[in-house]
């Protein structure tokens, strides 16, 4: 009886999730089995044809690799920087509250806005970055950050790291504050050095938080869209085209609903796999 009522109470939540999450996913999968281009009056079932095409589509694989590279590099940098920032912010010093708030500013700015800002910073001719690098003598002539096949991707990573390291820092800071002060005191009494304390106490106890940050950031990074859309549009020569951007171009710019959905479903499955792996890791961690 109690169980029945409990079920009734959570039913609305299930319905809501079903309507806004499960149904769209299933529907996208359903559409991905069609050749569907409403503008041309084309709509018929083709089974797995779109997926067969996808396997051989070099543009899909390139955007897959771009996305993977972007995610791996940006997330590792964000975790490293975020950890350093968290450790610094954890100490007690004057103005700590203010600094903690200030650090969050990049995270608070909407990505499209900060992307526009980076567009100007990275501008080859009027940009701040080139100016500074030339002033300190690191560059002899201005670099074309967003128009270069190697730099463009790294400029995007830089912008992403700038924006999301504070987010990682805040999660890790919360983790640091959960570690009881007595542990540190005991360690110091036993004569442990700073590095030893970090390795034996801080890091292991912080690990669950690091894994949570890793999970959030990887999922977010893998779906990166707005930054790329504003800064490079996927160029030059598709070197920065990510899966979400490719799917967007197929779905919204050229209205190829069938194939676009197939790309979207493939992205979804990849993200699902990554989250499963992260969650597994997290479970193993917390069980021992």
């Amino acid at each position, binding site marked *: 009886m109690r169980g029945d009522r409990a079920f009734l109470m959570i039913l609305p939540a299930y319905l809501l999730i079903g309507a806004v999450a499960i149904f769209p996913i299933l529907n*996208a999968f359903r559409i991905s089995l069609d050749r569907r281009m409403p503008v041309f009056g084309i709509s018929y079932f083709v089974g797995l044809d779109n997926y067969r095409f996808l396997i051989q589509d070099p543009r899909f694989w390139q955007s897959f690799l771009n996305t993977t590279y972007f995610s791996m590099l940006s997330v590792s940098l964000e975790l490293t920087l975020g950890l350093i920032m968290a450790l610094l912010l954890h100490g007690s010093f004057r103005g700590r509250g203010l600094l903690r708030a200030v650090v969050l500013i990049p995270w608070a700015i909407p990505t499209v806005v900060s992307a526009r800002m980076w567009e100007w910073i990275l501008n080859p001719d009027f940009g701040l970055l080139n100016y500074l690098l030339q002033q300190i003598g690191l560059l002899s*002539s201005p670099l074309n950050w967003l128009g270069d096949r190697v730099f463009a991707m790294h400029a995007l990573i830089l912008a992403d790291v700038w924006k999301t390291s504070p987010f990682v820092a805040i999660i890790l800071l919360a983790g640091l504050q959960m570690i009881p002060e007595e542990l540190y005191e005991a360690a110091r009494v036993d004569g442990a050095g700073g590095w030893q304390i970090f390795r034996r106490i801080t890091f292991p106890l912080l690990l669950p938080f690091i894994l949570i940050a890793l999970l959030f950031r990887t999922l977010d990074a893998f779906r990166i869209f707005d930054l790329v859309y504003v800064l490079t*549009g996927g160029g*030059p020569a*598709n070197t920065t085209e990510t899966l979400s951007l490719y*799917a967007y171009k197929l779905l919204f710019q050229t209205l190829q609903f069938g194939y676009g959905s197939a790309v979207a479903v493939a992205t979804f499955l990849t*993200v699902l796999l990554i989250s499963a792996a992260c969650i597994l890791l997290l479970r193993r961690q917390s069980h021992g």
Partner: protein
Amino acid sequence: MRSLICRVGSGACFIIVLAALAGCTREGTMKDAEGEMKLVFTHFKVPSPEVLSGLIEAFERQNPGVKVVEEVLPASTDQQHQYYATALEGRSAAFDVFALDVIWIQEFARAGWLLDLTPRLGATRLAGFLPGPVEAATYKDQIYAVPWFANAGILYFRKDLLSKYGFAPPRTFTELSQQAMTILEGEEDPNLKGFVWQGKQYEGLICVALEFIHGNGGTVIDGRRSALRDKKAVEALQLMHDLISVTRVSPPLVTSADEEATRHLFGAGRAIFMRNWPYALALYEQEGSKIRGMAGMATLPSFEGYQSAPTLGGWLLGVNRFSTRPDLAWKLVEFLSSQASQKVLAMKLGFPPPRDVLYQDAELKKGNPFIPPLYEAMRLARPRPVTPFYLMISQLLQPEFSAAIMGVKPPEQALEDASRLMEHVLKLEIE
């Protein structure tokens, strides 16, 4: 992906809400304004909106009892295309008259979303209009839109620098390169660039690349086959690549530059030549501009022995096939695209008119010293491939062209890859 689905979902919701709101306003206005007829005109954001509103008020005075509501869409053509495609796919009657980019007409006409205007235009059809816009407006011999204003790629040059070295505006790319190199050498200014154009991976790159390809006697599509394997196209992309990496007449920054980036650079007095649309001139002539009085306009150069081939841009007015007031909508199209209205738009907003006769207009000529090169550009302007599949084709070509000019792939390879992808799309119609 979740976010993508959310995006798809929220996009859909947004459009549903938009459509619902549009529906509400229509119904609402129909009820509370007995005897007054509403007409909705959707268009992109125009500069100095009071000019267009003035024209619309004049239309309302001529047609008592008619009220025209303007609805402004975001500036990006991609977003406008998305809005129209979604609304019209749902047979929405939320707007009656709308402004169409030249590259959409074929797609929309084929989909049956545009009212066939041929019977209303009568036997004269689009007589007196420039050939490029007319080609863009025609699908299977029927006319689906009326050219509103034209656009074409044009060469901007620094009058002061060219005359200092005794040069006339270049007619060929070779001439342009030589002039640029001489001036760069003579000026010894490390900040001065030679020739800037739009090389970012986006629609603008297609426009520029077509000017090189067409300007070498090449073309993109031949029937259902790609014409890009031809050596004329290969030479064209090779030249674009060489301008950046071999002769260094164009700075590397062009590979990430769009219209505005190049406009700022030229406007700061840091480039000798620029390819852009005509809109930039009015901004250069404004008070406070660093190069006021120094910018000149000329027809774009071409390859030796071929004619200059600026890419055609511009906007047309069409009537929504699902409009409940097609006759009134047509009246508005007729009014806004009339010679008199186009003259107002040209005088006050600098919209280049799509009619021959306006380029002979004494008043217009007096107001704008660049009417002759503009006319030349408009007359020579070539549309982008006139096919309902244009948007798909453009999406396929953008990364390949970008790869070729950056030297990521040799031009032959890039154009071969582009051709294969394009033929995949061109095949569609047969199915």
